[in-house]
C-alpha cells in the first residue's frame, strides 16, 4: 500500500501560524518552501521538515541557470536537508537572468529538451541533491512533441530526474486543450513520480482555465489524486498549495479533505 506524506506549500511568514496549527493538528508532515524566500525569512524556525522547491530557475533557457538564484535555492535545500529540489521545466524570459513574471512554457522541442537535461544535470551536480521536475499550466499545445507530458517524461528519462506531477496544472492543460482527464498518464514513467501537487483552479472570462491557489481543489482534482496515489510506486509526498492571503478556514478544509482522501495511505509519523 502507498505510504505518502502530506505537506503544505509555504511562501511567506504570513503562513507561519496556519502551517504550525496544521502540524499540531496532525494534518501535515512537511512544508514545501518556495525559494527564493523573502529576505531573511526563516521557515526552519517552525520546526517542521522542509521540502525545497523553486519556480525561479529557467531550466529550459539557452542561457542556463543564473548562479545567484541557484545559490539561494541551494542554501535553502542544504539547510533543510531536502530529499530533492523541485524545479520547473520553464523559461522566465529571453535574457541571461531575470523574470517576466509567471513561468513561461518553453517550446517543447528536442533541442530544448536537450538544453533542459543539460541545465538540470548541472543543477543536480551543483545542489548535490536529487531533482524532481514539474510542468506549469498549459494553454497551448506542444508542437514538436505529442504533448508537454511526453516532453516531461522524455526529459526525466533522459536525465534520470524524478517528477512532480502537479495534478491541477495537468487538469488545467486537459481542460484548455480538450483532452481527457487521464491524458498521457500512460506515457509517464510511473516509478519516477515522487510528488503530487494539489491546488484550486478557476475558469477565466477568457474561457481558459487557470491556476488559482486562492480556491480549494475541485472534487475532480481530489478524485484524480485519490486514484494516482496507488498508481505510482515511489510516490512520497503530496503538497497542498493554498494562497497565503486566502482564508485560513479554507486552508484547513482543503487539508482535512486531502487527509480524508489519502486515508490510511498516509505515512506513519
Amino acid at each position, binding site marked *: 500500500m502507498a505510504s505518502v506524506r502530506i505537506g503544505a506549500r509555504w511562501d511567506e511568514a504570513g503562513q507561519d501560524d496556519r502551517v504550525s496549527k496544521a502540524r499540531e493538528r496532525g494534518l501535515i508532515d512537511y512544508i514545501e518552501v518556495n525559494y527564493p524566500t*523573502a529576505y531573511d525569512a526563516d521557515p526552519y524556525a517552525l520546526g517542521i521538515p522542509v521540502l525545497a522547491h523553486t519556480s525561479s530557475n529557467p531550466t529550459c533557457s539557452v542561457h542556463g*541557470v543564473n548562479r545567484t*538564484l*541557484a545559490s*539561494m535555492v541551494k542554501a535553502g535545500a542544504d539547510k533543510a536537508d531536502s530529499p530533492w529540489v523541485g524545479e520547473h521545466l520553464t*523559461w522566465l524570459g529571453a535574457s541571461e537572468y531575470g523574470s*517576466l513574471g509567471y513561468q513561461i512554457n518553453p517550446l517543447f522541442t528536442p533541442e530544448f529538451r536537450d538544453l533542459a537535461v543539460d541545465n538540470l544535470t548541472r543543477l543536480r551536480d551543483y545542489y548535490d541533491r536529487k531533482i524532481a521536475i514539474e510542468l506549469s499550466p498549459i494553454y*497551448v499545445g506542444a508542437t514538436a512533441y505529442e504533448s508537454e507530458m511526453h516532453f516531461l517524461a522524455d526529459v526525466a528519462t533522459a536525465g534520470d530526474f524524478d517528477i512532480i506531477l502537479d495534478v491541477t496544472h495537468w487538469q488545467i492543460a486537459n481542460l484548455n486543450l480538450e483532452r481527457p482527464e487521464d491524458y498521457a498518464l500512460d506515457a509517464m514513467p510511473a516509478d519516477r513520480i515522487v510528488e503530487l501537487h494539489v491546488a484550486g483552479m478557476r475558469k477565466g472570462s477568457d474561457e*481558459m482555465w487557470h491556476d488559482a491557489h486562492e480556491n480549494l481543489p475541485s472534487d475532480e482534482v481530489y478524485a484524480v489524486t485519490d486514484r494516482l496515489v496507488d498508481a505510482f510506486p515511489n510516490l512520497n509526498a503530496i503538497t497542498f498549495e493554498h494562497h497565503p492571503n486566502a482564508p485560513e478556514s479554507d486552508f484547513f478544509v482543503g487539508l482535512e479533505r486531502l487527509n480524508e482522501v489519502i486515508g490510511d495511505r498516509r505515512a506513519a509519523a
Partner: protein
Amino acid sequence: MTALTAETRDRLLAIQDFAIRLMFCERTLEAYRDNPDAALSERGLTPEIKAQLPDVTSPQFLAEARGRRLLHERTLGQVFQHTMQVLSEINDPALSFDAFTASDHFLTPYYALPHPTGTGPGYEAVSKYFFWLRDTAQLRAPTGNAKLRDNVYLEFTAHLMGILGKPHDPSYDRFTGGLFWPLTPGTEVPVRLLSDQLYVFTINEPQKVQQLRQIGLLNLDEIEPAPKNDAGHI
C-alpha cells in the same frame, strides 16, 4: 549533451527570444501573423522555425499572451494609479502599456533595481516600469510632462518606502528617510520630498535642500538601474 556550437546557440537564443516576444510584443505578434517568414527573417530565423512555434491565432495562445500582460498591467496599475490616469489624459501610444511590454526596459533585466528578496535585478516589473517611463517620457528633461513626472515619482517613492517597511535587500537601505526631486528638472528649487512616513513636502529654500542631502536623502533623478548581475551561470 554535446556542447552547442556558437551558431546553434545563437539560433536557439533567437528562437527563445522570438517566442517570448510573441507573448509580450504586439508589434512582433502582428508582424508574425501578417507575414511569418518576414517576421522570422527580421530576427535572423528561417521559415522552418514556424513548425516549432505556437499557433498565434488560436484562442488559447491569445488568452495566455493577453493574460500575462494583463497580470502586469494590474500589478503596475495598483502601484501607479494616478500615473495611469495622467497617461490616459496624455494618450500617447509611445507611453502605452503595450509599448512598455515591447521595450528592452521590460524584456531585459538591465533597467531595474534589485529584487527585495536579494535575487538581484530583473525579477520585478515596478522598477522596470519607473525607469522606462522616466526614460521614454524624458521626465528628467525640463520639457518633460511635469504632472506625469510628479505622479510617477511620488508613486514609485511610495512603493520603495513600502519595501523598506519589510525585510529587504540591503541595497534599499539608501532610500531610508525618503526621496526628493526637483519639480522642474535641472533646477535647484522647488523640490518635492516624499518622506518614509509618506508625508509630501514642497521645499523652496536651497539651504533646506542641501540639508536633505546632508542627512543622506537622495535625489530620485540620480537613482539609476542596478549594475548587471555578473554572477554567471551554473
